């Protein structure tokens, strides 16, 4: 017989596979304790109020419990959870503002042609955080997602590929476009 392992000592990946096997809600509570504050703070970045962020966190964890078996262990659990959270938040934001976003997108595409040079990480790091916060609330949530994954959660290009399920060149292209949009919106503010 295997010696009993303390639940607190299990790695995230082991914990997740145990939850998938047993559907045990006490194990899920451990996972909740580990990640809920992180998820909540990420939701605050997308929600308009604290109450809305709480609702989002609630819905994310319910969906997480049901969809946990779609985590195949291709990446770290935290990476997977970040993209799961962002996807949920982006869907939430887009639900209300679909039409509005389309108009913004078109005008952005037309103007984007004028920017030719690649924007480096240093250029991005020179942006002021207060203004950046405002800019992130204006731009397309999909661009916001990829920028946050890259610069806030420090995901590599390889990890972004897995998290978003797209190829390397697609990741680079989306990052480039997102950076262009941020700088463009930043300069307009």
């Amino acid at each position, binding site marked *: 017989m295997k010696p009993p392992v303390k639940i607190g000592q299990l790695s995230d990946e082991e914990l997740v596979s145990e939850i998938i096997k047993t559907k045990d809600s006490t194990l899920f509570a451990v996972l909740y304790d580990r990640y809920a504050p992180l998820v909540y*703070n990420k939701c605050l970045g997308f929600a308009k109020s604290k109450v809305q962020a709480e609702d989002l966190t609630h819905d994310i964890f319910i969906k997480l419990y049901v969809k946990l078996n779609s985590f195949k262990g291709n990446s770290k659990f935290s990476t997977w959870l970040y993209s799961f959270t962002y996807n949920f938040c982006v869907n939430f934001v887009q639900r209300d503002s679909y039409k509005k976003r389309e108009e913004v997108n078109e005008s952005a595409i037309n103007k984007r042609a004028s920017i030719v040079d690649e924007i480096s990480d240093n250029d991005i790091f020179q*942006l002021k955080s207060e203004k950046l916060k405002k800019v992130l609330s204006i731009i397309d949530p999909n661009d916001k997602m990829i920028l946050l994954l890259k610069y*806030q959660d420090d995901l590599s290009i390889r990890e972004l590929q897995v998290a978003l399920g797209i190829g390397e060149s697609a990741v680079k292209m989306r990052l480039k476009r997102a950076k262009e949009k941020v700088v463009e919106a930043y300069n307009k503010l």
Partner: protein
Amino acid sequence: MENPFKKILHQEELPKKLKGKIMSDISFIKLTIDVADLLVIKYPETIENFLRLKEDKNK
């Protein structure tokens, strides 16, 4: 150089009451799944096996 993205990360405390609400919802979902599993999969399986046993005896 300092990363402005790290600065805009929220540092709010998570409300304690949320956990109870989420866990009770999770328990309810688990119960629903278990009951559905019992009625849709396990019961029919048992009945099928039972009938098959009878059939075998009759042969």
